[in-house]
C-alpha cells in the first residue's frame, strides 16, 4: 500500500505513515463491526442450543441488537466508585481494549495482506496477550471492592497458567514451520497433510497440540467452561462489577475481540489460515480472506457451542488441567517434535 501512496506523489515517510494508518483503520473498524455481529451470533447460537429464540426484536431477526445495546451503554452515566483508585480505574478498560486490538497487527488476511509482516510475529502475539492480564488485574484492584478483586486474582492466575502451555504449543508449530513469521507459518502448511491438505492439524504430531490449543484458548479468553472470572453465582459479575457505561463496553468489546483473535490464531496456526482447506488449484480462485473468515467463524461457533453445553470448571480443576496435564504434555511434545524433525528433516 505504501507504493500506492508513493505513486500519488508523497515522499516515502509520508506514504508509509498514511498507508499504516489506513491499514490500522481497515483492520480496526471492520473488527469492531465483526465484534458487534459476533456478540449477536453468540447469543443466537446459545439460544438455539437452549431451544430459545434469542434476540429477535431490534431489526430483522434481531440483527441490530448489539448496536442497540451499544447505544444504550453509550448513553448511560459513567459511575466511578468514590473509593476507587480513579486513574487506574479508568485506564484498566482502555488497556484491555487496546491490547485486544494491537494483536491483530500481525494477523495475515491473505498472502500479502498483513499490517506488520515482522520476523517475530508469533512472539509479538505472545507478548501482547501477556499484556491482557493488566487490564483485568488493575480493574479488579482499583475498584476497591471485594468480588472484583477475587475475580482479578483468579483471572490473572488463570491467564498466566495457560499462557505457559500456549507458549510450548506454539513452539511445536514454530518448529514445523521453521519461522516465527505468521505468513511463513501459513505458507508452510501448504500441502502439509498427505501432500494435499493445507493444515498442520492433519499432522498426527500436531493434532494433539491443536486440541490443546483450542482448550487453552478457551481458558485464556475466560470463556465457558473456564469463565471463573465472571462466575455470577460467586462473584456478581467478576472484575467488571463496578464498571458502567462506556468503560464497561470497552471490556465487553475487548473480550470479544480477544475471542475472535484466538479463533483466528486457531485457524492460522493449525488449519491453514488463508489457504483453502485442500491444495487444489480451483479453490485458490476464492480470495484467501474468505477462507480465513470461514475458519474463524467455524471456531467461533465451536466456542459458542462449548459455552452453551459445558458446565463450569471448579477452580482447582482448572489449575490441575493447566499445570498437571497441559504443561507436561506440551513440554513432552516439544521434545517429541524436535526429535522427529531431527530424524527426518535435519539428518
Amino acid at each position, binding site marked *: 500500500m505504501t507504493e500506492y501512496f508513493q505513486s500519488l506523489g508523497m515522499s516515502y*515517510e509520508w506514504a508509509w505513515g498514511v498507508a499504516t494508518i489506513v491499514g490500522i483503520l481497515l483492520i480496526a473498524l471492520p473488527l469492531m463491526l465483526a465484534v458487534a455481529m459476533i456478540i449477536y451470533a453468540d447469543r443466537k447460537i446459545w439460544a438455539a442450543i437452549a431451544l430459545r429464540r434469542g434476540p429477535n426484536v431490534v431489526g430483522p431477526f434481531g440483527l441490530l441488537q448489539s448496536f442497540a445495546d451499544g447505544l444504550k451503554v453509550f448513553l448511560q452515566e459513567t459511575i466511578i466508585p468514590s473509593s476507587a*483508585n480513579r486513574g*487506574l480505574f479508568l485506564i484498566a478498560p482502555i488497556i484491555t481494549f487496546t491490547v485486544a486490538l494491537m494483536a491483530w497487527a500481525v494477523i495475515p488476511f491473505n498472502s500479502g495482506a498483513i499490517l506488520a509482516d*515482522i*520476523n*517475530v510475529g508469533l*512472539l*509479538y502475539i*505472545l*507478548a501482547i496477550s*501477556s*499484556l491482557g*492480564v*493488566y487490564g483485568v*488485574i*488493575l480493574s479488579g*484492584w482499583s475498584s476497591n471492592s471485594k468480588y472484583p478483586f477475587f475475580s482479578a*486474582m483468579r483471572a*490473572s492466575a488463570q491467564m*498466566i497458567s495457560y*499462557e505457559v502451555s500456549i507458549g510450548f504449543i506454539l513452539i511445536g508449530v514454530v518448529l514445523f514451520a521453521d519461522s*516465527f513469521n505468521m505468513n511463513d507459518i501459513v505458507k508452510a502448511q501448504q500441502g502439509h497433510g498427505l501432500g494435499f491438505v493445507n493444515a498442520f492439524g492433519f499432522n498426527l504430531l500436531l493434532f494433539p497440540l491443536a486440541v490443546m490449543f483450542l482448550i487453552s484458548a478457551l481458558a485464556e479468553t475466560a470463556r465457558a467452561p473456564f469463565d471463573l472470572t465472571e462466575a455470577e453465582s460467586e462473584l456478581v459479575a467478576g472484575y467488571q462489577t463496578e464498571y458502567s457505561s462506556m468503560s464497561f463496553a470497552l471490556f465487553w468489546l475487548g473480550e470479544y475481540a480477544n475471542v475472535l483473535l484466538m479463533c483466528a490464531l486457531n485457524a492460522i496456526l493449525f488449519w491453514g489460515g488463508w489457504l483453502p482447506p485442500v491444495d487444489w488449484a480451483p479453490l485458490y480462485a476464492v480470495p484467501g480472506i474468505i477462507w480465513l473468515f470461514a475458519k474463524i467463524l467455524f471456531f467461533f461457533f465451536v466456542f459458542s457451542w462449548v459455552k452453551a453445553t459445558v458446565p463450569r470448571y471448579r477452580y*482447582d*480443576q482448572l489449575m*490441575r488441567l493447566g499445570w498437571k496435564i497441559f504443561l507436561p504434555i506440551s513440554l513432552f511434545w516439544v521434545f517429541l517434535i524436535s526429535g522427529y524433525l531431527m530424524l527426518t528433516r535435519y539428518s
Partner: protein
Amino acid sequence: MIQLIAFYLFATIVIASAAMVIFARNPVHSVMWLILAFFNAAGLMLLAGAEFIAMLLVIVYVGAVAVLFLFVVMMLDIDFAELRSGFVRYLPLGALVAIVLAAELVFAVGAWQAGGVDLAARAAPAATDTSNIQQIGELLYTRYIFLFEAAGIVLLVAMIGAIVLTHRQRGGVRIQNISAQNRRRPEDATRLVDPGVGQGMEL
C-alpha cells in the same frame, strides 16, 4: 530522523518512569511505572534491531515478572507512614550506594572513551541477513552451550529449592483423585435387586 525521535521518546519515557517508580507514593503505581519502563526499554531494543530481545523483554518481564510483583504488592497491607519513618536512618547507606554507582558509571564511561574492550568484534555473529533469532540460536547452542545449560541447571535448582521451601504436607485434606473417579463404574456403586413383596431389603 524518525529513529531519532523514537529513540528520544522511548529513552525519556524510560528515565521518567524509572524515576516515578521511586517517587510514586502508592506501591501499585510504582509497579505500573516499572511496567511502563520495561515496555519502553523493549522499544529501545527494537530500535537497536534486536526484535527477539525486545519481545522476550515484554513476555518475560512485563508478562510474568511484573505480574508477580503486582500480585505481591496488591496483597500487602502497606503502612506508608511506617515506610517513610526509616528515611533518615537509612540515608547514609543509601547515599553511599548512590555514590558508588555514580563512580562506577563515570569509570565505565571513561574506560569506554579510552577505547574500550573490543567485545563487539569477538562475539558478533558474522552474517547479518539471517534473522535475530537464528543468530542468537546459533551462538547459544554452539559456542555458549555449556553456559546455557549451566544457567538452565541453576534455574532448575532454584525452582526445586523454592518448591521444597514452601511445600508442606497438610493433614486431613480430601484431595480429588480424578483417575479413581473416572475408573469408577456404575456396578461398583449400585446394585440392582428385586425383593419380593413384604420381604424388605438388606442394605
